[in-house]
């Protein structure tokens, strides 16, 4: 199954700033997904990223706050913009890989102070 390298592993950021999270896959994949896990909560899908098209955002998430890039079939970034303490979460990228399950990146633990 595909392997995802996600960076950074963790970061502590000042409110009002932005953080870009990167996911690199060791093979070409059509669809990548970005999830958020707020403290004590389960995972919630932010958006689906297809190469060559605009990301599709779930209800409650907007492009201005969470811009996503997907320049090729092995790479994607998620930016958390104008951060507030409510953005403190674990952010995870994922791809659907059929029978071997939906592989996740190692996650980014973001703390906004």
């Amino acid at each position, binding site marked *: 199954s595909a392997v995802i390298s996600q960076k950074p592993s963790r970061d502590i950021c000042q409110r009002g700033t932005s953080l870009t999270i990167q996911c690199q896959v060791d093979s070409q994949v059509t669809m990548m997904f970005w*999830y958020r896990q707020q403290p004590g*909560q389960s995972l919630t*899908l932010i958006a689906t990223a297809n190469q060559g098209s605009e990301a599709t955002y779930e209800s409650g998430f907007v492009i201005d706050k969470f811009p996503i890039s997907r320049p090729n079939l092995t790479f994607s970034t998620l930016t958390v913009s104008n951060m507030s303490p409510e953005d403190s979460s674990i952010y995870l990228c994922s791809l659907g890989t059929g029978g071997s399950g939906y592989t*996740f990146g*190692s996650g980014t633990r973001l703390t906004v102070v």
Partner: protein
Amino acid sequence: EDKVVQSPLSLVVHEGDTVTLNCSYEVTNFRSLLWYKQEKKAPTFLFMLTSSGIEKKSGRLSSILDKKELSSILNITATQTGDSAIYLCASSEGAQKLVFGQGTRLTINP
């Protein structure tokens, strides 16, 4: 709206006990039901179930899907302290995105 519900939300047992975790789903264009174990940040894949009534096993863990009841269970026998984690159930739908349940926090006491 697609929904996945897990129960119990929290469970504390002694080492050696057997536990059963429950998951029910209401998902349009259902494709599969997945179980994950989360200890730190990234969920670790356990099982993917697509067919009803066929048990999947991996060591002390097993899982089965009931499409008629729109539910699944995850069994862990002879539990060990290393089984302590959050267990997540998720359903995939036509667009391949996952809808997650709230998770069950399992604590195994020695």
